[in-house]
């Protein structure tokens, strides 16, 4: 049975997608997660905030069944994600059909000779028919505005194009849950906007989107709930604006820094370029 909760807006029960309890994970003795607990419900758009090394990427990889906890449990729709479960081909295929992940570095995700092959890779693994694969790939390429790039080698694309192709290569499977690791990192402002707009247009209200980021300026556009990680633990879980207003928390979690400078002869103290700043 799935755990459910009432959504006050839709008045419909929302299924629990992920339930993490006391997750511990270490890379060769270096702890990445320290007893992390978190519940994610269907249709939620969540941002995982944290500085480098806070455990965001590790948590996403565990949610995608790519890493497994040293201790603690992580369940997807009531089923525990462990090596035994993901070692079963049938379960793994079904799971990866439902949960897609876009990696931080698109270069690791783009390994096919052409953009078309790249987007078709996932559907082909699912064993779908040729016609269905072709239809979905064309639809996905059209969605990201990259139909004209279909014969290009992915490694020859610009950073923004690579990111969009990486996104299309996952979204083509139409997963219920999308995990995004720093989707707008290292992109120019125009490419950032394009990626955010694509994500907004993809979500039909029932899709669950979990985005790991440390870019606070995009927070309002990508989530309705923000979870702050620090040292492999959840230190805050609230509405995005509440998190953004808590400067002390953001400074402690290394998400903003204070710097002072002078212009027009007036000393300024900035906590962050996108938060409030105050004159001293």
């Amino acid at each position: 049975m799935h755990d459910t909760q009432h959504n006050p807006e839709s008045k419909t029960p929302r299924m629990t997608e992920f339930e993490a309890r006391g997750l511990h994970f270490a890379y060769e003795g270096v702890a990445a997660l320290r007893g992390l607990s978190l519940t994610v419900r269907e249709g939620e758009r969540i941002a995982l905030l944290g500085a480098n090394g806070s455990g965001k990427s590790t948590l996403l990889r565990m949610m995608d069944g790519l890493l497994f906890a040293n201790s603690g449990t992580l369940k997807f729709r009531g089923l525990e994600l462990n090596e035994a479960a993901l070692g079963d081909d049938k379960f793994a295929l079904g799971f990866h059909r439902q949960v897609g992940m876009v990696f931080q570095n698109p270069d690791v995700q783009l390994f096919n000779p052409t953009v078309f092959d790249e987007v078709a890779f996932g559907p082909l693994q699912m064993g779908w028919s040729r016609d269905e694969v072709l239809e979905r790939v064309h639809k996905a390429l059209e969605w990201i505005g990259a139909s004209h790039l279909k014969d290009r080698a992915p490694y020859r694309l610009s950073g923004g194009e690579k990111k969009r192709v990486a996104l299309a290569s996952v979204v083509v499977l139409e997963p219920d849950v999308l995990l995004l690791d720093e989707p707008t990192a290292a992109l120019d402002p125009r490419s950032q906007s394009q990626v955010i707009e694509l994500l907004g247009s993809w979500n039909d209200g029932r899709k669950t989107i979990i985005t790991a980021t440390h870019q606070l300026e995009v927070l309002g556009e990508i989530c309705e709930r923000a979870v702050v990680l620090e040292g492999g633990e959840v230190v805050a879980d609230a509405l995005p604006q509440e998190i953004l207003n808590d400067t002390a928390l953001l400074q402690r979690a290394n998400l903003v820094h204070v710097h002072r400078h002078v212009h027009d002869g007036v000393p300024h103290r900035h906590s962050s370029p996108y938060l409030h700043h105050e004159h001293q």
Partner: protein
Amino acid sequence: MSAHPVASTLRGFSQALARTLVSEDAAHSGGVLQGVDPRAKLVGMLALVVASALAHRVPTLIALLAVGVGLAVASRVNVWSLARRVWLVAFAFTFMIAAPAMFLTPGIALWQWGGVVMTANGVHTAVLLVLRVEAAVTLSTLLVLTTPWMWLLKALRTLGVPVEVIALLAMTHRYLVLLAETANQMFESRQSRVVGKLKGAEQRHMMINTGGVLLSKTMAMGDEVYMAMLARGFRGEVRLLTEFRMKTRDWVAVAALLAVAAGAVVAGR
């Protein structure tokens, strides 16, 4: 400042490797080998490689090498590029191994300097080894260059190669590309931070350090590549939109390649 010759060579090699492996330009250029069913081509070319390994006569190996060159021309593979990137590299590595045989193999003396004697038998052995490697590498390279990598993997799978090996090959392909790309970026980064001319020992030290870091970085990235493949449902089985179908032309091609290989085995004894 001009780049160190080693760095420059490695950079050129990494760029060429990335271009060749990723773009698969030659695999889509519409030549003779490109038109052959990947399974037929795999069987035929592997037979020629085996024949090269078994040949013990210089004329036979030269003939096999000539077959390779002929196929390269007919398949629109740039022979000059093949010579620079394949033959020279294969020659350099093989010659290092074969050179001592010229002096250590007993036989009729061709040249003598003090106690060092180069023998006719030694030279013959070295030439055989170099030619064998050149022929085998040329034929293998042609197979890889004229076949899209995933097609080749599927052809291997249909011939009964285990899923684990296919997964390993798929990973290796992407790993090599990453290695080449990362190496290129690291060399550029290094070069941009070097002022003046480094001494030979400093250059070698820098190259060794760079190599170590490169290996660690690409291993970490290799793990990520594998995860990215798993994340999209990869389980080691190669699935393509293209269905392989053997036509008369493919049967003729495989028969011709097998006949040449058999002839080379007989003639090369």
